């Protein structure tokens, strides 16, 4: 059954991808990309990668699509006819694809439990991590503890993204009266948003702190919380959103999240362990792991929230500027 | 003769390289006061000569002077090793530097040249690197100073700063750097890869175990890699460099730079290949005949040039190949001739260039056709010119006779009759393109249409110039009679003898 669903989803993905290649309407392209992301999230779910599915749905189908739409609002939605020949790209793609297909021929069969990936390294995560780290969600254990350095890197990547976006676009602070933004006349939206936003933030907190036991974690939580504020900013306008959390404050938050994460590492060094060795955080190693993971997940959540929202602010203020012009 | 006995002998090498270098710095420092600057140049030159004389002393005494300065690569670095051939060259260069400095002072002031400080500074730098080449103990050191010489003379070539000078400078730098990097460095690296050493050793560093074909290729690479030797077809830089002020042409492009080239070839042949080892190589003969062709062809080209300096430049190209040919004949006596030719040609050719400069300063004439009758206005200059020309041709009683003599004997010894013929023909060509100049100057009337008012004002060049050219022409004469010290020096070179 799982294979069948997999096949159907893959077929839909292939159709979506083909459609994207030939469409010239960029708005449709971006929407199709959102669909593509969502379909791939379903595939991930079907392949047991619940955390990944969660993230892909919130990032690929959520944040990425929103950012692309805002960009389209500034750049226009039609792609012009290409002038250069498409033969060379086609050739490159065919060669690359052929190489990959060639590479698949010696691959271990799909889904087989005897595959090397399931024999080496991973068994320890599956068998030992509930004892060593003490969390039921192995993905969180691996993410935050075994490969915590990767996750620190990931947080820094997000931080670099906001540095890049801010240096490119900047966030313009506007006086409230400067322009009428938001959707003032949408009474219904206002009311509904006021109901939903607290719920979304609550859900974000749930995802943040429930990540140890089920799918979720700092990253997803940060994105969801950012989504709540993005909704607020969309409906009530950027100036009002700035009044709630200003861009400067978000910069600080983003930095603080990274520092929070790193400080856990430094503290464990101070306690005599290696960098990010959570065993040192408490007398009981498992408890130490638990503290460590909670704190670093918080750091990740804070940074991701601040970065995503700040990036949206940057794009949003650009879009408003172009609307005014 | 030895003023420096208090010093460690090996330190003389350091000093002889550092003194001109320090001199260059002092020239910059005193650039604002021309008199002081020129004094610095002269004093530096005098100190250098005394140093070289002291080194010569030690060489005759048989003291080995060696110095390892710094190790660039494991087991290989900048090191110096004094040997007779280098001493000979160093003597020539340092002695002529004094003379040229005197001359340059007169010339640069007489000609109102710009950028005189840069000029004297680079001049001293080039001498410093020439000393480095003279005393180099291995190929790497030789190569390094060779490159420094190229770079430090580049500003001298482009001295005028106009388009012609820049064009000349481009050709100069282009050919010299390209050949040295593409061929010489490659040959050096190849040698290193083959033998694991680059030291100059008596009898050469190659032995029978090395592939003769590879060695033959290396020989060609070395000959062309030393672009300063101006073997055809890589001779274009030398005429191009004539855009430089005349003292530069005189010292560097008749003595220091070009002689550094042929000296390098001579040194490589004697100490890397070994004169004996050369005999087995296929390309020895090839290069020999290319050298011979260069002698004849460039003499022919010289005939067609009306510009005096251009004619002298092609004459230099031709004379340089004498030395190359002498080295490639692979006989001890021809090598001796080649070594001596470094000295004898130097004094002869520098005299000729001094005269050309004197004529330029005094009458602003560059072309030979305009010089008819000038001899009466500038008798000393043209007399010196005649002496220099005779020396170059190789007629007694001038210095050039001896070196050509040994070369010819060497050619006969090795049964290379073509070379003998080439030497003869070349001498005839030399007569044809050099002697008419003083003859016309003395015995012809000025051409029609010459500017009379200017003509009447023309007189001999300033005193420093006259002093310089008198000294060098005197040397041409003197070296015919008192060559023995130099011959003794040459005989000290391993594998080389005048007998």
């Amino acid at each position, binding site marked *: 059954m799982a294979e069948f669903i997999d096949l159907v989803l893959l077929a839909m993905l292939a159709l979506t991808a083909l459609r994207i290649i030939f469409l010239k309407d960029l708005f449709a392209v971006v929407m199709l990309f959102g669909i593509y992301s969502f379909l791939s999230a379903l595939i991930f779910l079907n392949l047991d990668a619940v955390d990944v599915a969660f993230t892909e749905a919130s990032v690929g189908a959520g944040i990425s699509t929103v950012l692309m739409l805002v960009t389209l609002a500034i750049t226009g939605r039609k792609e012009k006819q290409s002038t250069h020949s498409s033969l060379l790209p086609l050739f490159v793609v065919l060669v690359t694809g052929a190489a990959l297909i060639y590479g698949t021929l010696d691959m271990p069969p799909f889904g087989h439990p005897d595959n090397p990936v399931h024999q080496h390294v991973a068994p320890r995560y599956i068998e030992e991590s509930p004892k060593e780290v003490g969390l039921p969600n192995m993905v969180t254990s691996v993410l935050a503890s075994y490969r915590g350095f990767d996750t620190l890197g990931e947080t820094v990547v997000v931080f670099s993204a906001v540095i890049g976006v801010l240096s490119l676009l900047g966030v313009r602070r506007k006086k409230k009266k400067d322009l009428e933004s938001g*959707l003032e*006349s*949408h009474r*219904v*939206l206002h009311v*509904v948003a006021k109901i*939903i936003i607290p*719920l979304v933030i609550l859900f974000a907190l749930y995802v943040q702190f429930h990540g140890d036991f089920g799918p979720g974690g700092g990253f997803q939580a940060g994105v969801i919380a950012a989504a709540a504020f993005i909704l607020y900013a969309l409906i009530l306008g950027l100036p009002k959103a700035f009044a709630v959390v200003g861009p400067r404050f978000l910069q600080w938050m983003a930095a603080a999240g990274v520092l929070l994460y790193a400080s856990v590492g430094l503290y464990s060094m101070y306690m005599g362990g290696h960098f990010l060795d959570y065993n040192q955080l408490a007398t009981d190693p498992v408890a130490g792991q638990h503290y460590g993971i909670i704190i670093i997940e918080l750091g990740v959540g804070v940074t991701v929230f601040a970065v995503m929202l700040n990036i949206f602010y940057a794009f949003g203020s650009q879009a408003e500027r172009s609307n005014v012009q | 003769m030895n003023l420096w006995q208090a010093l460690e002998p090996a330190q003389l090498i350091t000093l002889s390289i550092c003194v001109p270098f320090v001199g260059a710095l002092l020239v910059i420092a005193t650039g604002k006061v021309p008199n002081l600057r020129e004094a610095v140049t002269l004093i530096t030159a005098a100190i250098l000569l005394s140093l070289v004389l002291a080194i010569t002393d030690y060489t005759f005494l048989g003291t080995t002077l060696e110095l390892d300065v710094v190790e660039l690569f494991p087991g290989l670095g900048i090191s110096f090793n004094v040997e007779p051939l280098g001493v000979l060259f160093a003597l020539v260069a340092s002695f002529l530097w004094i003379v040229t400095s005197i001359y340059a002072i007169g010339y640069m002031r007489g000609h109102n040249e710009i950028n005189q400080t840069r000029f004297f500074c680079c001049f001293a730098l080039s001498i410093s690197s020439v000393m480095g080449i003279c005393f180099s103990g291995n190929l790497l050191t030789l190569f390094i100073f060779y490159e420094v010489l190229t770079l430090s003379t580049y500003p001298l070539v482009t001295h005028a700063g106009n388009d012609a000078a820049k064009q000349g400078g481009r050709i100069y730098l282009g050919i010299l750097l390209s050949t040295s990097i593409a061929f010489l460095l490659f040959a050096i690296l190849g040698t290193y890869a083959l033998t694991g050493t680059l030291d100059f050793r008596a009898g050469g560093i190659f032995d029978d175990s090395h592939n003769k074909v590879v060695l033959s290729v290396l020989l060609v690479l070395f000959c062309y890699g030393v672009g300063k030797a101006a073997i055809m077809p890589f001779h274009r830089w030398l005429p191009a460099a004539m855009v430089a002020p005349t003292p530069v042409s005189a010292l560097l492009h008749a003595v220091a730079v070009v002689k550094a080239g042929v000296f390098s070839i001579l040194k490589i042949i004697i100490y890397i290949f070994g004169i004996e080892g050369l005999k087995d190589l296929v390309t020895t003969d090839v290069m020999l005949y290319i050298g011979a062709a260069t002698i004849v062809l460039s003499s022919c080209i010289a005939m067609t040039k009306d510009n005096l300096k251009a004619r002298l430049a092609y004459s230099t190209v031709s004379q340089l190949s004498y030395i190359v040919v002498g080295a490639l004949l692979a006989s001890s006596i021809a090598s001796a001739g080649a070594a001596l030719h470094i000295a004898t040609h130097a004094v002869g050719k520098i005299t000729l260039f001094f005269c050309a400069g004197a004529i330029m300063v005094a009458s602003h004439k560059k072309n030979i056709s305009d010089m008819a009758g000038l001899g009466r206005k500038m008798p000393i200059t043209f007399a010196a010119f005649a002496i220099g020309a005779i020396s170059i041709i190789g007629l007694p009683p001038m210095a050039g006779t001896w070196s050509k003599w040994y070369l010819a004997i060497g050619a006969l010894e090795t049964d290379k009759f073509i070379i003998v013929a080439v030497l003869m023909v070349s001498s005839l060509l030399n007569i044809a393109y050099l002697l008419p100049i003083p003859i016309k100057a003395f015995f012809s009337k000025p051409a029609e249409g010459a500017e009379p008012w200017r003509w009447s004002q023309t007189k001999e060049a300033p005193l420093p110039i006259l002093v310089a050219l008198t000294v060098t022409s005197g040397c041409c004469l003197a070296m015919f009679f008192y060559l023995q010290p130099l011959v003794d020096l040459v005989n000290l070179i391993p594998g080389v003898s005048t007998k």
Partner: protein
Amino acid sequence: MDFLDIVSSILLLAGVFFGFSGAVGLFRFPDFFTRIHAASVTDSIAAILIIGALLLQTSFDLNTAKLVFILLFLMVTSPTASHALAKSARHGGLLTLAETRPQDKQGSAK
């Protein structure tokens, strides 16, 4: 197969039917406003029916609560989204099919 399963299946089938008809409508209807009508069929009635069917499949534990929350969330958001879309379209000057059709043509079409 007990009673709950049968009810659940019926609800599911009904949900699928509405979902499908909504999709068909989205493709076949002539203009924006009619299409949004079709689309909202999918995310209102179809979603409710399907989630309702799933509710019956659970054993009334945490999953039931989650499904109820999802249902509530959908019931709040999807009408709002449809409303916002339609209103924006109206705001932006998009006319309905009836308004775009000239009066005389309307008469002759009959």
